[in-house]
């Protein structure tokens, strides 16, 4: 068993139009750890996540569960890393919820008999009713969509889960529910977001990214209380930490 789930060394990436999205990024995540990647919009968070399963590949080294991405079987890697996109409409492309959740396992060659069980289990894990299986994604509310999107990845039983802005556009109740759901998942977690309160609830470690670089990496509360650091990188000290300091 490898100690590190993710090891990224000096990863750089430019988009085809020349925009430099990542600059010599280093990041190690241990198995079972929950790490938040925070930073302003356009910091390179999503681009970094897309490197975890080889959808994008820049210069530098990415190792997943001890295995270098370059030259390895990407399907094998995609079994380990579950990526949930920000807009659930991008993630849910099948006619029904069942088809969407079953897509991953079927693509990985899981036998049909087991697929149905996996779909049920994944929907159960994100707190959705099984009667939802035959609904169309465009008939769901946004909160439900986000949960189905996570289920589509859970059905692949990944060891590493990478979520891109999971709480964006959610109302407080759905957001709270989603945080509970994510908190109960037994996986290594990478969370790209600027919802700092959610990070405080879920992750003990945070990484501050801005303009494609990693600027700070450490214990969440310590980083988030550092007003200078936060404001320099388009963030601010979360309200809950501010009141704690004043009180």
């Amino acid at each position, binding site marked *: 068993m490898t100690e590190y789930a993710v090891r990224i060394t000096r990863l750089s990436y430019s988009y085809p139009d020349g925009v430099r999205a990542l600059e010599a990024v280093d990041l190690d995540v241990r198995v079972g750890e929950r790490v938040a990647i925070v930073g302003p919009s356009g910091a390179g968070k999503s681009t970094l996540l*897309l490197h975890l*399963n080889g*959808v994008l590949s820049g210069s530098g080294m990415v190792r997943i569960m001890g295995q270098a991405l370059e030259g390895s079987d990407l*399907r094998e890697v*995609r*079994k380990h*890393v*579950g*990526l949930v*996109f920000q*807009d659930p*409409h*991008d*993630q*849910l*492309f*099948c*006619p*029904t919820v*069942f*088809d969407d959740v*079953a*897509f*991953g396992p*079927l*693509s*990985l060659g899981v036998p*049909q008999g087991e*697929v*149905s069980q996996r779909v049920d289990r994944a929907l159960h894990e994100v707190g959705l009713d099984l009667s939802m299986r*035959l609904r*169309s*994604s*465009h*008939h769901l509310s946004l909160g439900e969509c986000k949960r189905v999107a996570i289920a*589509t*990845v859970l059905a*692949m039983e990944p060891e590493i889960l990478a979520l891109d802005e999971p709480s964006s556009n959610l109302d407080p109740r759905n957001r709270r529910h989603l945080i509970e759901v994510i908190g109960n998942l037994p996986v290594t977690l990478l969370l790209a977001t600027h919802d700092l309160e959610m990070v405080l609830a879920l992750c003990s470690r945070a990484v501050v990214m801005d303009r494609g670089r990693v600027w700070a990496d450490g214990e969440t509360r310590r980083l988030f209380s550092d007003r200078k650091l936060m404001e320099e990188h388009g963030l601010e000290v979360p309200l809950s930490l501010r009141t704690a300091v004043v009180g």
Partner: protein
Amino acid sequence: MKHNFIDRYADLDSPLHQLDARTKLVGFTALIISVLAIRPGSTFVFFAFFFLTAIFMGISQVPLGYILGRSLVLLPFVLLASLARPWRGGIDFAFLSALIMRSVLSLIILVLLTNTTRFAEMMRGLRKLGCPQILTLNLGFLYRYVFVLTEEVLRMRQARDCRSVGRAPAKVELKILGSMLGTLLVRSFERAERLYQAMLSRGYSGDFPVYGSRHFGWRDLVFIVALVPFVLIAFRA
């Protein structure tokens, strides 16, 4: 937002809904072809087909008004198209009535097919009948994203309305419309890109997997056998 597209009543649970999608695709297509083969003037055969579709409409539990409404929508176009035929010596009533009956019957059958079969099932059925994957895949995406696109258009229109006072000259309106269409195209293109990334992330490698569904059963057999005499009389009449 709740959407209802072509398969509005496909979630009902009638004997017709329970049939395998392949059965319905083959059966209803055979019926439509038969309808087109009925010769003008064979009133009895037309009545036989109206009788058959009436039975189907009864079984299907789809509201009658909905089926008829949908079936009559195209009638003006059919009548217009019938003018294309050179008329010699006055109106040929047998031909005209056959044309109307054929189009109405075909549309009733089509509406029945789409409203007793979920779109996903239909695509699956087409796939299993040997329809190329690229076609079913594209239809599937079209069905999935037409709502997302419609909402995007509505939002863009609201944004435009919020910033425009009164009516602009037609030339300006056209220009705005053009740039809106352009934006929509670019947005769709970007979405397609992200969608493909999402597919890759979930292990897509060129083959869109299909999960097994209903099987061909005794109901399907009864359905097909019951259609045979109708197909026969249509072609012999």
